[in-house]
């Protein structure tokens, strides 16, 4: 017991010292480097349109209009203070999950004019891990292309080409999985329209 008490003073002193080094010096150094060398990235990869901030390249957002590609279902929680990222955390045998998926499948088919036999890509009917997934699968995008083309009066092929153009492929050829960045795709669609 005495040994413990004797060590309390060095403990307190090193705690203060290390808090200063690790809690003040270190993060401020990293912030300084980040802000100077990687300003865009360090500040959230913000995307603007016509000078106005519309979102982040890395974060998914809600799209409901027929002329936009829709992102994945999200379990983001809105609170007065902040939007809390997160997943549904529903288990695989959960009835709640089955009900939600069933409903989403029906809605997806209806929305995109697909027959009742069309298998729906899994990313379209499952909630993402963060609630902020910026991507959808290529299959999902291609099934939405028809609806988007019709809503914007564009040839489907052009929409398909645009999709292909906005695929974030695997990095270094093997890392991760390919996906379509919905915000960038929708911005490109809007850019098309404004050019027309």
């Amino acid at each position: 017991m005495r040994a413990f008490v004797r060590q309390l003073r060095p403990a307190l002193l090193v705690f203060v010292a290390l808090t200063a080094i690790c809690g003040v010096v270190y993060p401020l150094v990293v912030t300084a480097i980040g802000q100077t060398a990687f300003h865009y990235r360090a500040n959230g990869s913000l995307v603007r349109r016509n000078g106005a901030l519309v979102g982040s390249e890395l974060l998914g957002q809600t799209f409901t209009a027929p002329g936009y590609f829709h992102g994945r279902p999200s379990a983001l929680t809105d609170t007065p203070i902040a939007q809390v990222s997160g997943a549904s955390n529903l288990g695989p045998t959960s009835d709640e999950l089955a009900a939600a998926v069933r409903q989403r499948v029906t809605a997806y088919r209806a929305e995109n004019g697909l027959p009742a036999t069309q298998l729906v890509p899994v990313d379209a009917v499952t909630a993402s891990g963060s609630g902020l997934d910026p991507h959808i699968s290529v299959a999902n995008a291609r099934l939405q292309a028809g609806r988007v083309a019709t809503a914007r009066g564009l040839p489907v092929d052009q929409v398909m080409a645009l999709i292909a153009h906005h695929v974030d492929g695997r990095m270094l050829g093997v890392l991760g999985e390919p996906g379509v960045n919905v915000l960038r795709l929708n911005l490109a669609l809007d850019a098309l329209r404004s050019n027309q």
Partner: protein
Amino acid sequence: MSWQAILQAGALALALFITVPPLGNYLAAVYGARHGVDRAPGERVFGPVERLVYRTMRIDPRREQRWTAYAASMLAFSMVSVLGLYLLVRLQGSLPGNPGHRPSMSPAGAFNTAISFVTNTNWQWYAGEVSASHLIQMLGLAVQNVVSAAAGMAVAVALIRGVVRAGTNQLGNFWVDLVRTVVRVLLPLCLVFSVVLVSQGVVQNLRGDRVVATLDSGASTTQHIPGGPVASQEAPKMLGTNGGGFYNANSAHPFENPNPLTNLLEIWALLLIPFAMVGAFGRLVGDRRQAKVLALVMAGILVLITSLASFAEQSGNPRLNALGVDQSMSIQQSGGNLEGKEVRIGAAGCGLFAGPTTGTSTGAVNCAHDSMTPLGGLAPMVHMMFGEISPGGVGVGLMGLLIYALLAVFIAGLMVGRTPEYLGKRIQAAEMKLLTLYILAMPLALLGFAATAVVLRSAHTYQAGPHGLSEVLYNYASAANNNGSAFGGQNTATTWYMSTQGVAMLIGRFFTIVPALAIGGSLAAKPKVPVTAGTMPTNTALFAGLLAGVAVIVAGLTFFPALALGPILEHLKL
């Protein structure tokens, strides 16, 4: 599984093969150097910083400690840290650096959070977006990410010294080990890693949320784009096997883990130091093959579990197939069970993260473990139940495997007709008493609290059916093993869970470290027995198999009944 996913795992292995040995040698040099006598690498750069700290602390870095003083130092430091962090989060609302105006934490929440970060668990009952200000994240949580890792590494080195030294009772100086680890190992690595992360998109700023109108004005939603010193916290979160992220979604959040490269780098980072400690061990005991055996055991279990998780998730959730969902793998989609997962990471990528994160005591997640398939969720659960030895948390993982090695040596050593001995030190009654204490701590906390929670109505916050039992088992396994990942579907922000998980974390951390340090002290005092043809070899493949068998069998025998009623039953019911 796609061939790319397999190659991705191969790339991870390659990255480790290349970086672990040099770091292991560096660690051995840093820890093996006696203060003022040997020159540890980086003396010119780091020496002055360390000396300043020692002067501030008013300790003599040349003095070494017996195991009792070493343990007392570690406990004192942990206690001071808990108090400090507790005060910080309780006063959060009144402190500056709070652009988002986060309120102070409740006493129970503060208690749980303080213990959680100090014990390297980083269990987060709270959501970072609403409950933690930037100041607290930087000054309280990130600091503990660094120093709790350093404390874990220090105690492992003390145990190694106990094995290596003979006829002495000195195990080193905890303060020197702690400061050296922070200054010469963790901070340099964190600095470099955090900058790399920023370059890929992990945010690093000091502003609050930006509220923007989304592109689709018809959706009439706004988006809060969060800020914060994330990269500087993310680096020690992974490198120190902590797992406590900035945001609620942890490494599923694009601002913490933006792309597949950062995903791979984060997995590499969380495995780096635990494996490097094994390399340092090999160098310090003067027999590389001993380290290879331990690394083989760690890698073997890790690969098996990770493969199980990846395959299970990639195979998808059979129940969804019946609902018209396409989970197949094709050019156009990665498929698999994507509930709770990110597209850029994929189902297999979730398994690739889940295995290492639960094999070390990290507990960060890049997908929702609660939504994994029964077998997919069984993998990380069982991985934790092995006691975090594959490769385990920084320092404490090696410590745990060494304790298992003593157990394996004891059982098998008798079979060759000698008093069991490990690396020249006899294992006798005193060591067995401490070893038994060590082995009992985690199951006691895990099963004891889980069983009680299942009986108490007030603790009934889990889902129905066998999945609910899985949730309870997983969350207590996470606390008792200082992991910190969760089956997040269960509400653990109640007083019952916050207090019992807090106690479980304390038991898991200190009722293992203190007996291990005592074993170190006991071994250090013993003489070294020479190696002869009659010594049971511990640097052969046979011993590796034996050690893996002992670890798996002991965990299996303890937890099989509970697992049978949880994830295994859920799988059979699928």
